[in-house]
């Protein structure tokens, strides 16, 4: 099964991780929530799939385009 990268759209800090490794995700399900400039911004699953990798931890700083997770579709 192919694996796809989940990237962030924005620069921010990882606030909390919402999903677990192995969890089945539907498109748009939140994987984690970032915090940037007083806003909470979810990083959602781009497709239906299974979460296989989380590459960041809470309080990490991520920049636009960073791969933060991988899902198997």
């Amino acid at each position: 099964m192919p694996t796809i990268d989940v990237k962030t759209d924005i620069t921010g800090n990882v606030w909390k991780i919402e999903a677990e490794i192995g969890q089945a995700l539907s498109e748009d399900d939140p994987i984690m929530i970032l915090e940037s400039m007083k806003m909470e911004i979810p990083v959602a699953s781009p497709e239906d799939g299974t979460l296989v990798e989380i590459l960041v931890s809470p309080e990490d700083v991520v920049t636009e385009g960073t791969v933060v997770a991988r899902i198997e579709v």
Partner: protein
Amino acid sequence: MQSLLVANRGEIARRIIRSARELGLRTVAVYSEADSGSAHVADADTAVPIGPAPARDSYLDGARVIDAARTAGANAVHPGYGFLSENAEFAEAVEAAGLIWIGPHPDSLRAMGDKQRAREIAERAGVPVVPGSRRFAIGDIQDLDRAAAVIDYPLLVKASAGGGGIGMRRVDGPESLEKTVTATQSMAQKAFGDGTVFLERFVPKARHVEIQVFGFGDGTAIHLFERDCSVQRRFQKVIEESPAPGLPPETRDAMAEAALALCKETEYRGAGTIEFIVDADSFEFFFLEMNTRIQVEHPVTEMIVDRDLVAMQIDLARGALTGIDQAEIEMHGHAIECRLYAENPTKMFMPSPGPLDVFDLPEAGEDLRIESGYRAGDVVTTYYDPMLAKLIVHGPDRMAACEAALAALRAVRVEGIHTNRDFLIACLEDAGFRSGAVYTGFVDDNVKRLTAAKG
């Protein structure tokens, strides 16, 4: 008062330092680890570090701010807006430490910070509030029709335990009232474990108009006219102006009178803003809330009345403000403020932090004020709000002010991050905005067109 600490950062810290210095005070800045090289730190006579970048560990930590005042020998604290500015416990701690608090009495902060209490105080002062009904617990629909008739349609059925638009349904006439109330009650019971609902008037096309007040703490107060802040995105103001376009003079007078009644009721002290929802068609107005601090958009008022609100705050706190008569406050011309944000309008206004490789702002002049906490080469971090600068223009009338704002915005050049500059230009060029037909849904209803230009 000899030395004033500004418990804030960015443009508002710089702006307060400027007025304090003009009044002959020594100025003290505080800064987080992320702000050690910031402009507000360079502006102040002394600067004290107060902790790590996250606001809760620095700018929101009242004990650290008070320690910094002691360290630097400051004997007064100005909180600016946001952060600790409306925190009654902090205001009390400042006073308990023997320092002068430049702000309203802590009791005012507490009363107005509680929406229900604020509404009660407004009602007591005779200020119109959004008409609402009693609470209907689940299964209770007694005299529902009569309650609705008093409020009038269209109205909203709101779950008492709801908020932020959740548990809210619109009813346009009596035929669907009972059905909607019972459905909302059962939905609220499931969602919040509490099926209580109430009815509230719905204003389909609303404007956000606020009155700037200044109280002297003894029951007397003056108002400094209104600001229209209807142009908003994600409940954040982007363009503010004064006077409010097309607002009938008798509406403005009635709003100002209501605002002054509220100040009298609370013996309000210092600068404050009373926010109203105004029905864009009927000009009926209702109390929304009172902000017990200096506001982001205060320069709009300063431009049209030619007064320095921050200097007035400082003078009142140090007992140097001589009484100002309402008749002395006159309005001249039209002022508009545009908030330049680090955000991407084409991506639903998502924040866009990063380095300011290029940051050119137009040169300020008599009819153009530029307020910014940033300089070219600075980095806009993710820790604080996305406002880069405020451009405030003044002109003889609204059209002249619009043109001046457009000219100022076109002179802005930012590289390294996205900004809402082109979005602001699109708003100011929009025929609806130009006609003065502003309302709180203006951005949402026209978002495609307003964000079509590159960000």
